[in-house]
């Protein structure tokens, strides 16, 4: 007798499935995009939300953490646009602003009028409606294993930005993709971006996320990034969502020969967040750096999961992740370095360090190396610990009060990866944010 397996769906899964069904014929784009969306929706409905028995989500049991699925956000009204206009998490940094409010590209807040030569920017919804050629590249990059967060994002794929940087173009100003959420009731938003950085191009892109405090809104974001040969690309990311938000983000990047790539994720917002990164080294002589910081307090949960895939020889990668965990927060870092057959002379080093500021904070570090080449240098180190009492005593013995001494030590601890941000203004903002965070600690 065949037992029929009928999975039990949580309310969030049921709501998401209904929402996917309802959105099916409403979302822009036909042909391949529609197929991509439908396949992703189907895959999600079949597998549901990931839980702790799914290895990649072991420490972030989304099925338990995501109790409800918020309804899709309505397009931003005037008030929301006004708020977004004033919102600038990078004061003093001159950048090209592209603004998404509740996942919708807002042209009036975005500076598309006089773009630097060699730079093309198209709002995704517009590109889908017009059948822009760039949209054909969406879905080209995929993670190693099925990822529910990405499928969910793809199932609702509708707006965001497409950025193309022509071969040889060296952008003078950074591009800042502002993701701003507005509204006082829980709502969910989906944003998608695609960036194609041409050969020998040079660019800095900032991605920021923010929204209201104490509103259980849900943000889904995914970026596909193609960095061509000899290009130099810096991606800096600030996740400063409101305190009750759920934030799920994915980065899929493919990097070409002789390219230089740097990724600096800073995580300090949201009740629950996950940033999943897959970097594929598709060419030789790539130099890549992943250096990020996570600052958590209260009951915040933040997961950074990263796969660096060395597919070709002579690749160098450096990963440094630092987190300061206060209160009852939980910081998760999963980092995997793959070195494939033939990726000889790979030099990969990964370090993850957590500073536990209370006895109740939790840090889960899972470094993995998977090596199939025999002439490589790979290493990883992971530490979790409290502030060194001997160091602290040295400060106290010089008359510095305990709180101030701790602040200086925490600042110095998390500043290390941020000091590596090449853009001076952006670096300054990130370091100042750490100071603000410490000040709020009291």
């Amino acid at each position, binding site marked *: 007798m065949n037992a029929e397996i009928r999975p039990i769906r949580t309310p969030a899964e049921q709501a998401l499935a209904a929402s996917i069904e309802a959105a099916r014929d409403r979302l822009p784009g036909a042909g391949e995009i529609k197929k991509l969306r439908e396949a992703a929706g189907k895959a999600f409905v079949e597998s549901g939300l990931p839980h702790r028995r799914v290895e990649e989500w072991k420490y972030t049991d989304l099925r338990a953490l995501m109790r409800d699925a918020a309804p899709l956000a309505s397009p931003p009204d005037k008030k929301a646009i006004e708020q977004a206009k004033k919102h600038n998490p990078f004061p003093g940094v001159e950048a090209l602003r592209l603004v998404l409010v509740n996942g919708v590209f807002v042209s009036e807040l975005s500076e598309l009028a006089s773009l630097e030569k060699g730079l093309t920017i198209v709002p995704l919804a517009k590109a889908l409606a017009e059948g822009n050629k760039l949209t054909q590249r969406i879905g080209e990059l995929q993670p190693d294993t099925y990822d529910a967060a990405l499928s969910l994002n793809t199932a609702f794929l509708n707006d965001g930005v497409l950025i193309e940087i022509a071969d040889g173009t060296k952008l003078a100003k950074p591009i800042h993709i502002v993701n701003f959420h507005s509204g006082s009731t829980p709502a969910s938003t989906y944003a998608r971006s695609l960036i194609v950085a041409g050969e020998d191009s040079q660019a800095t892109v900032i991605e920021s996320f923010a929204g209201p405090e104490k509103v259980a809104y849900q943000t889904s974001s995914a970026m596909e990034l193609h960095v061509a040969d000899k290009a130099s690309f810096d991606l800096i990311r600030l996740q400063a969502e409101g305190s009750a938000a759920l934030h799920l983000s994915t980065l899929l990047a493919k990097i070409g020969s002789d390219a230089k790539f740097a990724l600096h994720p800073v995580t300090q917002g949201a009740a629950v967040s996950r940033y999943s990164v897959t970097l594929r080294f598709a060419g030789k002589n790539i130099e890549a750096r992943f250096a990020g910081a996570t600052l958590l307090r209260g009951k915040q949960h933040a997961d950074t999961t990263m796969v660096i895939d060395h597919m070709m020889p002579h690749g160098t990668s450096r990963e440094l992740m630092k987190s300061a965990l206060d209160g009852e927060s939980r910081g998760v870092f999963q980092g995997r370095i793959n070195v494939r057959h033939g990726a000889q002379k790979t030099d990969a080093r990964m370090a993850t360090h957590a500073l536990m500021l209370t006895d109740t904070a939790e840090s889960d570090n899972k470094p993995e190396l998977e090596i199939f080449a025999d002439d490589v240098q790979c290493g990883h180190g992971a530490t979790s610990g409290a502030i060194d009492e001997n160091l602290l*005593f040295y*400060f*106290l*013995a010089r*008359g*510095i009060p305990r709180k101030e001494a701790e602040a200086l*030590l925490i600042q110095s601890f998390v500043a290390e990866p941020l000091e590596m941000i090449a853009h001076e203004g952006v670096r300054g903002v990130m370091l100042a944010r750490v100071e603000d965070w410490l000040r709020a600690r009291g």
Partner: protein
Amino acid sequence: MSKLLEVKNLHAEVGGKKILNGLDLSVEEGKVHAIMGPNGSGKSTLSYILAGKPRYEVTEGSVKFLGQDLLALPPDERAAKGLFLAFQYPMEIPGVASMIFLRTAVNSVRKKRGEAELSTPDFLRLVREKASDLKIDQEMLKRAVNVGFSGGEKKRNEILQMALLEPKLCVLDETDSGLDIDALKVVAEGVNELRSKKRSFVVITHYQRLLNHIVPDVVHVMAKGKIVKTGGPELAKELEAKGYAAFEQAA
């Protein structure tokens, strides 16, 4: 003469191990006291107890500083009151710039003493002046605290901090260890520069050598957790000649 520091019948332990066994010591204003003794006699423990290091537990006795119960104060308050410990092994603090550290220390102490905080230019001027007295390169101060400093540089940095914080009692814990003769002279000159009628020193050392440069008013011999003999500068010379063995037996 008024007593600056008064230690009475001090017993202390670290990790359950008894280190100090009824130590008495009193230091008057403006005096330099040397404490000499073999390894393990409890000299460093005494300095840590005075500065308030965690896990150094006083089980009996009292310490009065300017007539107040020193042991009741947290370490930063002791520093503000005017106690300064020059560490035997100064900590390296990667990521914290020397100037930020010095400035935070100076202004924390000034604030607690009811003095105005120093402006940036005033602070920089002060540091430059004191650093040049101690032959400390400005480049050194651009680095993180003690990171990449040689042994001698670390000790000079301690004396710089001492000069900036203007303490009433300076405890020097084996400041001569790891110093070559030139560095020793610079450090000793720095200390002598700070000697005044209002400032006292407790100089902890193994060797008489340092006391040729910082000439003490009083010399104590410490063994097995207490002071076993007190005398003038000549006692240091006697020790150098005879060694500690006789005193250890006496204890």
